[in-house]
């Protein structure tokens, strides 16, 4: 178990290192540096700027100085937002993305598990069929389509929820729903298929035989086993929500990490880009590790129950 985690941690560090290296090199070889303006600055000004931001010298020198400052847990300075360090910028923007992602995560997993279980229990009825058709439909509608329509219907048309803004729960409902919608569908499909398999198993027949109603048998026994594939999906889900929030932040005009990332590419803001990539990668690796831990824990419980 410990060996497994050590190996995972080791390979994760390597992956993050490779991604950082490739990101940095790609960002630096791209034509158009961070200090290029329409009006070319005087040469000595540009050189002083490059020196200040440690972007002078050969690509290799820049790269090693960046990696060594990273090793000292220093993410560097933003070249676009002067006087801001990358860490400060990320600290300011990350919580918004995090709140949005967490809300969508809760919506997607809860609604998905409930809908999927319902569809499996009412197999081949209209409930099942409409739930599964609805799932395929929501998977086919990306958030940059559903977002504007949600705004047009619930905010502009019916006036139930605010159009934009960020902070209160009411303002978070539409973005959260928009981000979660396709993943409700994925989770529901996963849950339905898995529960259908479990419903055929022996221990569930025993549960029914000892007099539990179908609902009780499913809630008390079947769901615990059937939820396992959903748990493995939670890691990728968190990752998708993290990167997917870029679009939702764009549609609902939320100032979060996704916008930081997109803007830093367009501004050639090397260190901000690198910082954002690091945050994304570390979070992804952590989520996957967390899922593995949860999986082993749940697995033990199954052995106990079985």
């Amino acid at each position, binding site marked *: 178990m410990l060996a497994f985690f050590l190996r995972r941690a080791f*390979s*994760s560090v*390597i*992956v993050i290192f490779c*991604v950082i290296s*490739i*990101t940095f090199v*790609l*960002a630096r*070889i*791209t*034509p*158009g540096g961070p200090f290029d303006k329409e009006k070319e600055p005087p040469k000595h000004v540009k050189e002083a700027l490059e020196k200040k931001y440690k972007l002078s010298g050969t690509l290799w020198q820049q790269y090693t100085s960046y990696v060594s400052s990273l090793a000292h847990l220093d993410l560097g300075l933003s070249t676009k937002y002067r006087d801001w360090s990358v860490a400060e910028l990320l600290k300011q923007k990350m919580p918004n993305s995090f709140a949005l992602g967490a809300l969508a995560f809760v919506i997607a997993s809860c609604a998905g598990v409930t809908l999927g279980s319902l569809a499996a229990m009412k197999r081949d009825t209209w409930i099942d069929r409409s739930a599964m058709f609805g799932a*395929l*439909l929501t*998977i*086919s*509608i*990306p958030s*940059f*389509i559903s*977002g*504007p*329509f949600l*705004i*047009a219907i619930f905010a*502009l048309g019916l006036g139930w929820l605010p*159009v934009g803004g960020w902070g209160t729960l009411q303002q978070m409902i539409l973005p959260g729903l928009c981000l979660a919608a396709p993943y409700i569908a*994925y989770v529901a*499909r*996963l849950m339905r*298929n898995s529960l259908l398999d479990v419903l055929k198993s022996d221990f569930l027949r025993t549960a029914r035989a000892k007099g539990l109603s179908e609902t009780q048998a499913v809630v008390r026994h079947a769901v615990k086993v059937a939820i396992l594939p959903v748990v493995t999906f939670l890691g990728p889900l968190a*990752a998708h929500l*993290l*990167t997917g929030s*870029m*679009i939702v932040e*764009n*549609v609902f005009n939320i100032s979060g990490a996704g916008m930081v*990332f*997109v803007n830093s*590419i*367009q501004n050639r803001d090397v260190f901000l*880009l690198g910082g954002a*990539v690091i945050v*994304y*990668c570390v979070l*992804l*690796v952590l989520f*996957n590790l967390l899922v593995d831990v949860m999986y082993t824990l749940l697995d033990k419980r199954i052995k106990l129950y079985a």
Partner: protein
Amino acid sequence: MPEAASIARPDGWQILKRNRTALIALGFLAGLSLVAIVVPMLLPEALKLTSSNSFVPPSAAHYLGTDVNGQDMLYRLLSGARVSLGVGLVGALISLGIGTLYGMISGYAGGRIDGVMMRTIEVLQSVPRILFIMILIAALDDYVKEWVDGWRFSAEAKGWAWTAKAMTDLKAYSKVMVMVVSLGLVEWLTMARIVRGQVLVLREMTFVTAARAMGQSPWGVLWRHLLPNLSTIILTYLTLTIPAVILDESLLSFLGLGIEDPAASWGSLLKDGAQVINPIESKWWLLVFPALLMSASLLALNFLGDGLRDAFDPKSGE
């Protein structure tokens, strides 16, 4: 040379015919592709140009209205469909090529090579792909633009009018080329895993042993005997990769990192549509038509892919 051996499998067309939704989806996609290719050629040239009639609601002159530049929305929508479907198909084909080759080698070689190749896939899966595509496109785009310009200038210098014009047209689409290749380069992981799993089963079959005993080289076995047996599963996952690539492309274009004016794709049209929603005056046609067409196409592709998967690969449900 003997016929390629084949394990008994039902005729794909027979199975597909029984699934009515998948058949309707296939018809819709074929029809849409035909319309997207043919109709823009038949539309009068005047409609395609920018004009001062911006934001005209749908009318007899402009069936789907006009956009901010006064261009006809029907034309924009259909040329966007060309780009989106084309990017989806070509990107998926590139990923198919890489994924199939990788999966076949990994599965057939087995042992340590297989282990290393599969670990690599696991590692690649933990990289946030869409971020990577964005960086890759930003980095490569300017180089491709310069390269296209270089060709244009040398063509003009030599007086090749046709080549020069083609290069000018190509420049608007240079980002599309970069995008297609980048998407193809990152979307092959699922395909490789599926193909490898299938090869692991197939290589234990007696016809493979027979082929090897007759002196076929490993490449010969892979190409003549395994590939024909993999064709259905490859086709199935091709159908499921296309919507994934289309989604990625439109996501990039929506964020303004993908296709650039004057070229259009569904994503860039939706970006324009989303920018003009406001409570005072609704320009609904800019949003509704691209949204409808894109959702319907993705739905059809997903229906078709799911239908094919249920038919050929019933165990692999998500």
